[in-house]
Every structure is written in C-alpha cells, then in structure tokens.
C-alpha cells in the first residue's frame, strides 16, 4: 500500500540520516526539525497510540487520537510504527529499529525501571547500536540530585530561573501559555544532535550519548540575569512589562494603542541614541510636553538608566501618544525614525502578517485523510542549496508499519504476522 506521507526530501542537508523518535513532549519537535532537514524520522508508538496524542487542543474540539493539534504540530512529516517493548518480541524489534538509525531521540526518566524493562533506556539503545547518536532529553539531565524529579513545562520554567524574570509584583511570576520549556529543550537538543552527527562523521562513525537537560535549557533563557548576579550580586526580576537593566527597573515598553498593544523600546539605556528623533516625533503630535526641553533631550540621549521620576514623565507622554494611534502606524513611524518598535501580535495577526506573506512563509498542508488542508508555519530558515521542507501531515498510529517493517527491516509477511500474534506491533 502506498502512503501519502511523509513527502520525500532527498535534497535536505540531513538527507541520508535516519532518526528513531521515542520521545514525548521533550523531543518530538527536535525529531520533526531533523526530518524537515531531510532525515527519515520514524516515530515509535505503543499499539494504542502515543500518550501525547491526547494533548489538546483538538481539531474542531473533538478529542481523538488522530485529532490532536499538538500531535499534528510536533509530529508532522514523520513515519509512525507501533512497537510494544513490553513483550520480548517488541523489545527485539525496537532494537532492530535502533540498529537501523543514525540517531535515537528518547525521553525516558533517568534510571527508570520501566524503560530498562522495555530495553528503551539509553544504555540498552546504545548497546543495540554502538554507532548511533543516542539523545536523551530529560527534565534535569542524567545525573545529579534532581535527576529523578518529575517535571512538566512549568516546573522547568521555574527551576530553570526563567519565570523569576517576568510576571508582576501583585500576581507573582507567570509562565508563557504555550509551553516554552518544551520548545526550548527541543530546539537545543536538535543542535546537540547535529553536533554529534557531525562529530560521528568526522570521527569515523563514533556513536555517543547526548545528555540534554530541560532545566538547563531554561537556565540559558535568563537573558543577562546570571551575569548580573555574578557581577553585582543583584537579582533581576519582573515585572515583565519593563526591562530590568543590571538589576534596575527600566521604563515600561508595552503601551496600549487604539487597536491593541505596541512594544516600544524607545528611551533610556541603549535606546538612548535614538531619543531625539522620538522626541521630535512626539513633539510634532503635540505630545512631547516637557520632554522637548533641551535638558531632557540631553538626558534621554545618554545610555544611563533613568530614575523613577524620569520614567514616570516619559511613560506618561508615551501613553498619551500611543493610545489613540494604531499599532502598525506607530511601528512604521518609529522604524522610519530609527527606533526598533514592533506590534504585539496574536496568532491571527501573525498568520496575516505582510512580512511573512512577502516571504511566502506559510505552507498549506493537505490532510488527505479528512479531505482538508491547513496552514502550518513554514521554513524556519532558508538554505540556498539544501532547503528545509514541510513533509506533510502527522502520521496515524502505525500508518507505516508495513512500509518500515517490510521495506526497511525486510521482514517477510509471516514474520510480521508472528509479531502481530506476539502483540509486538
């Protein structure tokens, strides 16, 4: 039976590699990105389907194992096989799949007895294929006192220090609603995977273990808070609406407009040098007030942080200026005057953004199975010779069993029937 996905991608920079994806939320995007760069990615699922198929949101709000938008987003363009490592024949099959892979992405908890019993722990996988790059993406890494601590996105956001830097005084720290610890660790794991693949090629096929920590991935997303503590003994913190510069709270830079919000880094600190052009602009609109005075111009041009009373004056002028205007108009005006402003966009505005349209960013992905097609994010980078490619919709549970077990592993029909009887697939 021919299958419609994944679309072939022989021109990708990573074409020729095969990646086995045993991952949960911490590694599925990593594997997907490798696939979009050309690798053949095989997602391994239990017979009932991977647990992340139950992650919402769902298409038309109808929960089901083929309708999770999370699943669609993270697993598009992969092949799917079912494999049941709880039975011996399944473990053997898993190790045959690992033996055919260049890289294995796995997310089992360090020291997990369950993973060991299934032959799915990193040690067993490396034994199955000593030449493979085995990438273990875990909450806190393979070693250390917290290695076994259960974690989800918000736990890593907290324990990685990232959440300390935002939120508000009244309500405390806040997480980004779309999980960023998961996104961060996936993207960073993908970098580690390709470094190990490069080293493998340069070192004559050297396989190795890549140990990735979700906590550390968020630790790396603390801006300059680490160095601020190290150099000055000051804890940077929120609120997120302003910038904290070397432990001092800068003026707010999120302002309400007639049609939403605008991010307006404009005065103080490094934005100082563009201050005069901004003051002229406010002045033209009759909103500059005292800011137009020479001593204010001189003050705002410097890179020295502003005192609280200076900030209050400035924020007042900016609020009055932005409130009646449209955000795109404000951004265009600021950019024309050399200030890096941007609109606050939600999902709809992002999808309708002219910049992305001009670059032909979005990809329409056919879902032949339900007779629909949907718009997905496009190339995260444009490679001139070996382009990124969206590989089609996410697979159904076990959609590629025949394809992989028959084609790739070369198992005969009766062997596959035996595996089915043994409940291995």
């Amino acid at each position, binding site marked *: 039976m021919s299958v419609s996905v994944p679309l072939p991608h022989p021109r*990708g920079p990573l074409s020729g590699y095969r990646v086995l994806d045993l991952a949960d939320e911490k590694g599925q995007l990593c594997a997907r990105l490798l696939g979009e760069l050309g690798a053949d990615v095989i997602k391994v699922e239990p017979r009932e389907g991977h647990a992340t198929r139950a992650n919402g*949101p769902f298409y038309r709000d109808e929960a089901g194992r083929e309708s999770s*938008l999370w699943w669609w987003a*993270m697993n598009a363009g992969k092949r799917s096989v079912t494999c049941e490592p709880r039975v011996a024949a399944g473990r053997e099959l898993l190790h045959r799949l690992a033996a055919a892979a260049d890289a294995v992405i796995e997310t089992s908890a360090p020291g997990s007895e369950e993973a060991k019993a299934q032959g799915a722990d990193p040690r067993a996988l490396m034994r199955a294929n000593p030449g493979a790059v085995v990438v273990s993406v875990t909450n*806190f*890494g393979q070693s*250390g*006192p917290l290695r076994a*601590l259960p974690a989800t996105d*918000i*736990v890593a956001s*907290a324990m990685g220090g990232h959440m300390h830097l*935002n*939120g508000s005084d009244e309500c405390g720290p806040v*997480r*980004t*609603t*779309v999980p960023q610890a998961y996104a*961060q660790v996936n*993207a960073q*794991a*993908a970098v*580690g995977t*390709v*470094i*190990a693949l*490069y*080293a493998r090629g340069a070192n004559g096929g*050297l396989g*190795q273990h890549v*140990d*990735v920590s979700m906590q*550390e991935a968020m*630790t790396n997303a603390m801006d300059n808070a680490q*160095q*601020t*503590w*190290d*150099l000055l003994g*000051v*804890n*940077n913190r929120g*609120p*997120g*609406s302003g910038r904290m510069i070397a432990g001092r709270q800068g003026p707010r*830079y999120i302002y309400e407009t007639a049609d939403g*919000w605008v*991010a307006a880094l404009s005065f103080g600190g490094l934005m100082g040098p563009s201050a005069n052009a901004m003051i002229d602009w406010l002045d033209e609109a009759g909103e500059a007030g005292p800011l137009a005075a020479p001593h204010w111009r001189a003050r705002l041009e410097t890179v020295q942080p502003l005192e609280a009373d200076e900030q209050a004056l400035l924020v007042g002028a900016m609020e009055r200026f932005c409130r009646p205007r449209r955000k795109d108009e404000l951004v265009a005006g600021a950019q024309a005057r050399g200030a890096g402003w*941007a*609109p*606050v966009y*939600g*999902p709809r505005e*992002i999808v309708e953004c002219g910049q992305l349209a001009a670059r032909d960013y979005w990809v329409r992905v056919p879902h032949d199975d339900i007779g629909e097609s949907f718009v997905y*994010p496009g190339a*995260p*980078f*444009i*490679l001139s010779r*070996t382009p990124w490619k969206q590989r089609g919709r996410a697979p159904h549970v076990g959609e590629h069993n025949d394809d992989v077990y028959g084609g790739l592993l070369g198992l005969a029909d009766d062997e596959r029937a035996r595996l089915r009887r043994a409940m291995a697939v």
Partner: protein
Amino acid sequence: MARAKRPAPLAGLRVTDLSWVGVGPTVAKYLADHGAEVIRVESATRLETLRRAGPFLDNEPHPENSGYYANFNSSKLGVTINLKHPRGPALVKRLVAVSDAVAESFTPGTLAKLGLDYEALRAVRPDLVMISMPLFGQTGPWSDYMGYGHVLQAAAGFNHLTGWPDGEPIGTGIAYTDFLAPHFGALALLAALDHRRRTGEGQYIDFSQYEGVLHALGPALLEWTANGRELERLGNRDPEAAPHGAWRCADGRSVVIACFTEEHWEGFRAAIGRPDWTDLERMRRKPSRLREQKEIDRHTALWCGERTAAQAFGAMRERGVPSGIVRSPEEMHRDPQLRHRGHYRVLEHPTMGARTYDSPAFRLSKTPGELTKAAPLLGEDNERVFKGVLGIGDEEYADLLAEGVLE
C-alpha cells in the same frame, strides 16, 4: 592508562564571526564551545552594542567590563578590523578565504555595500557556508526593521501569550527571542556544515529570527488556522491540568505545581492532607476539575501561604507531583543540580576576573564541548590571527596598524 584525547566535535572548522549583539554571537558560541576556531571580528570605531550594555563589573561602564557581552563570546578569538577603512573589507576577505563558515547579523544590504555579501565571499571561498540572521530576513517590507529580542517577542506572539487573562500582554520580561532564535540558526548552520562535510558543497542561509521562533508556538498557530480560534494568555493555568500554577508561599518565594494526571491529583490530595473539598464529586475527575480551577486555585493559594516554598515543594515531591520552586538568579548559582552538572563554568577574564558563563544544555559523552576561554578583549588576538592564521608579515602588520585598518 590515559587514552589519547578525542578531538572536540567541531575541531578543524574555522568560522569568521561578523555578527553582533545577541543572536549571531550565540550561534557562533555554539561552534566555539564545541571546538571550532571562531574569530570574532569587531571594531573599536563602532563598538559592539553589548560592550556598551551592562551588567558591568563594579557598575563601571567600560567595553571590557560587560558581562552581557562576555557570556555570548566564550571560547572565541577576538580581532578588530575597521570595516569602514578602505582596506578593511579586503582583510575580512582574506580571513573568509581560510574560513569554513561566516556568521553575520547586519541589516540586510550592509555587507553588500562593503563588497562582503555572499556572492563576493564565495568568490574567495567557493565552499563557504554563510548565515545571515537579522530579525526579519533578507527580503520583505520589514527586512530593514531594527529591534531587539524584547520587541521581536511581541511580533512573534510571546507577549500575547504571556500574562493574565484580564491584564496586559506583559511578555517574558527579557529579550526572549534572543534566547530562542539562536538554536534555530545554529541548527541550520550545523546542518549545512554537515552537508558540506559529506558533499563539499557550501551554501547561503537566509535566517529570519521571526520565522524561526514561530516554531515554538506551533499548536497555538494551528488552533487559529485549523479551528479559527485564538489562544489567549491564561496566567499560569493550563487547559489540561488542574491544579496548575505558581503560588506564593509564606517566605515570599513561589512554588509551582502541575497535576496533569489522576495520579498527580491523588498525590496532590495526599500532600495537602486530603481536605474535604478535594473529596467533592466535582473534584473527582479531571474534566470537571478543569471547570473548578478558580476554587482549586483558592485552596492551593491558602495551603501554600501557610508554609515555606521548601515545605510545599517537599510535600509535593514526596508524593511524586510535578512541582518546583521559582528560582532566583542567586538561587540558580547555588542550585545543587546545576552545580552537579557544571552548568555554570567559571572562566578567568583579563579585566573581569573569574566569572560564570552559561554552557550548552547538552553534553556529548565522548566528545564533550568545552568553554576554552573567557570572552576576548577588543583585538586581543590580532597578532595571533593576522600573523599566525593569515601569515601576514611584520612589515605589513605594522602598516595595517599604522593605517588604522585594525581599529
């Protein structure tokens, strides 16, 4: 018996790093920290933005005292070339001719004006891999827009999706995309370098930071394109977990708790002593609990407010409930887990002394990365690079110095 040390994973690669500020230097740092020889090109005539940005040692602004700059530039060599000097671009070309890759993040068109765009550079190095990485890419109406990660996060949806439902789109409080985009840039560059290793072919990468970071919001974008509904910021709630959030404890620190499964919920109940409200019919199954988040939050806040964060976290941890404490930067430096992992590396800098640097979130077991040196001083490695790598003689070097090419 000591075994011969394996070479670093990217040993043998040389990178000319023309980039600046956050994203470009972080991409090149990945390569430097894994053994590539990365030559960071700067100029004293137009100082790198982050050398002018704090935190500074002793709060003294000075180009060699910025921790912000230092952290992004470990393991690199530092040279100075005045690109505006008539002889500057030719010197850059000589460097590129012996490099495998070039990284840059100027406004589109800047390098072309200097005769240093990809077409010009591949004339001197046909198998070059070059990555350009401004905010919005090389084309389109916003291609010359400027900005930093603080505002790109707004255009990319992170403000819209961070904050409380009835409040403003406060965002992450940091230049968030500066700490997300580099992973996508590095992935593209490394994949292209691996293709080059296998085929000998170089290429050009037009990396728009905006287009990369949107992949961190996949489900929210599909929620719009497939369901026609916009996801809104939910504070610390999660559409699929209850309780889920951060609560302030008696000592002022915040604890986070996330109950996605019935197992988590049972652990949570046990941890807080199975109070009556948890036994109510509407609390028994997750779908109905999700409708009772307000009440659950209220009880959880009261419970957390009566104990320290360590006590609350300890109780959850004992019962296997995903939980943690919101760590401050100070606590991060003392965190036993990060200590054990050696996440923060201490490197000796000539003017700043022994300072901590971030390291990659991944470790390779056989060919690990290593932060080999602190960030370079301006022009610290001029002689080593221009004489040693390019083979420039003493006379020509003196002439370049006298002419101001190396400023």
